């Protein structure tokens, strides 16, 4: 295991527990190269990381360092040019595109800075989207009632009990981000990947959303990974990592 996968405070009991446990996601030597106007831009130069069940990890780095690229690679949205990425014991880099999509649907939830809700759908339908994708039309008929109940409960838990029928345009920024969190959690994924989840919110709402993310992932034992520029938010994570020169390093306290 490289330095990057070591906990921020290697002396704690939590670190010892993680060292003994099987990671839910293990990335080794991730390389991602972009070719822009005949120029080779190596964004990830061998990033390593192990993520364990129930922990929260903050990833920081200067703008353009490749944080989002790393998050997309960890979330199976982007295929790294080199390296290994094992999710729940499955080597994802060798999977076909449809198989990667299935794995993403079952194991990974995304929360984006700009919410990325579908404007034509209500809050409830947005939250239900991953479940609709999971089931075909015939299976959905059997699962529909239970899935809806679960999504309703989740939205109510996030304080949107009265706003389920509202479209994104009828919701505030904080409410939209709560819908996005409900959507990320509805399939009970192993990993919750957040790309600057409070970056588009005012200070007060940012605090509320951050509280929600930490509370809910702890309560449900999700692995929470956050890409952020917010040092305060990073401090609240179990450990912090910094993306520097295309590699992950422990974040200085």
């Amino acid at each position, binding site marked *: 295991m490289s330095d990057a996968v070591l906990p921020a405070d290697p002396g704690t009991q939590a670190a010892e527990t993680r060292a003994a446990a099987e990671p839910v996601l293990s990335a080794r030597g991730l390389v991602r190269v972009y070719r822009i106007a005949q120029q080779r831009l190596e964004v990830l130069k061998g990033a390593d990381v192990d993520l364990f069940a129930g922990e929260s990890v903050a990833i920081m780095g200067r703008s353009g360092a490749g944080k989002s*690229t790393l998050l*997309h690679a960890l*979330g199976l*949205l*982007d295929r790294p040019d080199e390296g290994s990425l094992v999710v729940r014991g499955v080597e994802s880099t060798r999977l076909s*595109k*449809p198989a990667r*999509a*299935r*794995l*993403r*649907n*079952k194991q*990974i939830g*995304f929360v*984006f800075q700009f919410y*990325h*809700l*579908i404007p*034509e*759908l209500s809050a409830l*339908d947005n939250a239900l*989207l*991953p479940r*609709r*994708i*999971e*089931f*075909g*039309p015939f299976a*959905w008929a059997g699962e529909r009632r239970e899935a809806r109940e679960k999504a309703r409960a989740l939205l109510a838990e996030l304080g949107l009990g009265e706003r389920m029928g509202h479209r994104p345009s009828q919701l505030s920024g904080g409410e939209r981000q709560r819908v996005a969190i409900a*959507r990320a959690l509805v399939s009970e994924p192993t990993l919750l990947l957040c790309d600057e989840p409070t970056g588009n919110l005012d200070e007060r709402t940012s605090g509320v959303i951050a509280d929600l993310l930490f509370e809910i992932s702890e309560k449900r034992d999700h692995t929470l990974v956050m890409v952020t520029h917010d040092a305060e938010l990073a401090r609240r994570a179990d450990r912090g990592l910094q993306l520097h020169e295309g590699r992950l390093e422990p974040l200085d306290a």
Partner: protein
Amino acid sequence: MYRLHLASRYTFQRPVSYLAMVAIGLAVMALIVVLSIMNGFLEETRSFLRGTTADIVVFPHQIQFAYSREALEDAVAEHPDVRGACARLVRPAIFKVYGRAPVLHGNSRDAAQHQVLVLGVDAEAEIAVTDFSEYLANVETPLFRVADPERPFHLPIERIRDLEFKFANAPTVLVSEEMLSGLLLRPGDALNLVTVPDSALQLDGQPVKPASQTFLVAGAYRTGHYNHDQATVYISHKDFVRWTGTQHQVSELYVSVDEGADLDRVRDELDAKLRDIGMVSTVETWEDRHRIWLGAVENERNILLVIFFFFLLLVCTITFSVLTMMVQQKVRDIGILSAMGAPAGGVGGVFATCGIYIATLGGVFGLVAGIALASNINAVKDFIEDTFDIEVFQKEVYAFTEIPVALDHQWNAAIAGATVVGAVLICLLPAFRAARMDPVEALRHE
């Protein structure tokens, strides 16, 4: 499930989708209406030509001597496939309404004097061989109908309008309902027919003296074919001979043939037989006689296929544009769907389903609207003409009293089906583009 769900939201919450549906619908509707009118035109024309021309027509070449009507009819009737034959005499004449100035008003067709074709027929034989009895029954105004359809040239004395009965013994004539209405005539009224008699053929140096005869209108007929009805009158065969003094008994012989018989074969056999007995004639089937006219109408209908191809291109272009625009506007949604675990095929499927919705609903709308409009085209025409005081359908030009329509449901279904299939196929291109989009690039799309 998400494909149908999202596609319905994308489609039905965007006004441009409805515009595309309306455009497809209008294209299908227009084509169905035009095709129905063309079919109606062809069907009516064939029906009319068939009814007024009989199956086979014999034109005797009576250059040196007049053929005997009975001999000609007997020779033709001997053919095993011939059901009946009727001799007709044909002569152009000047038609003049009795007691009126020659020109009633500017339209020559409705003027009190104009040229007509006079047919001298034996009513009983004509009824047996052609649709003559239908033409008598088709008359819409009860006052204009003949007193006795079995004896159409009979005019009961109580219908004679001249109070002094000075024409009580005059021969009678059948005039079309259109002409009676246009000239403000009714049964019992008198009119004159003027022609050149056969005696005018004598080379005695004298000027030709026309043969003028007063006829009383016995009643009306109606074929529905405007040109025919405006320029044809019927008189009895006997009165024709008496009026013109002709030595001929037959200008043309109308022959009806058994159902299913091969007309071309019967034509050839009759032609050969008449030559054998010295009654040289031109023998034509009804299709031979009108081949140019029928060919032109059929050709026009076939041109519709070419027009249909361009309609299809138009529909495909509209659908392609709408779907391409939709994919362009939904790039970020494509990234979101991918992030939520939708496979590329599923993402493309959402947009393909949008195309199916637009094309199918547009096609069904066009099919229903097209059939509805074609079925009520004359009511619509009347409404437009009455409301805007304009003439939409000129009877003089199109030769029918109303717009003929024949709905061909196989063709209609083919038009709608081909349009829907074409539009759906073209939708696969933008859907394929959506499916191939890089999810990371899509999420970053501004």
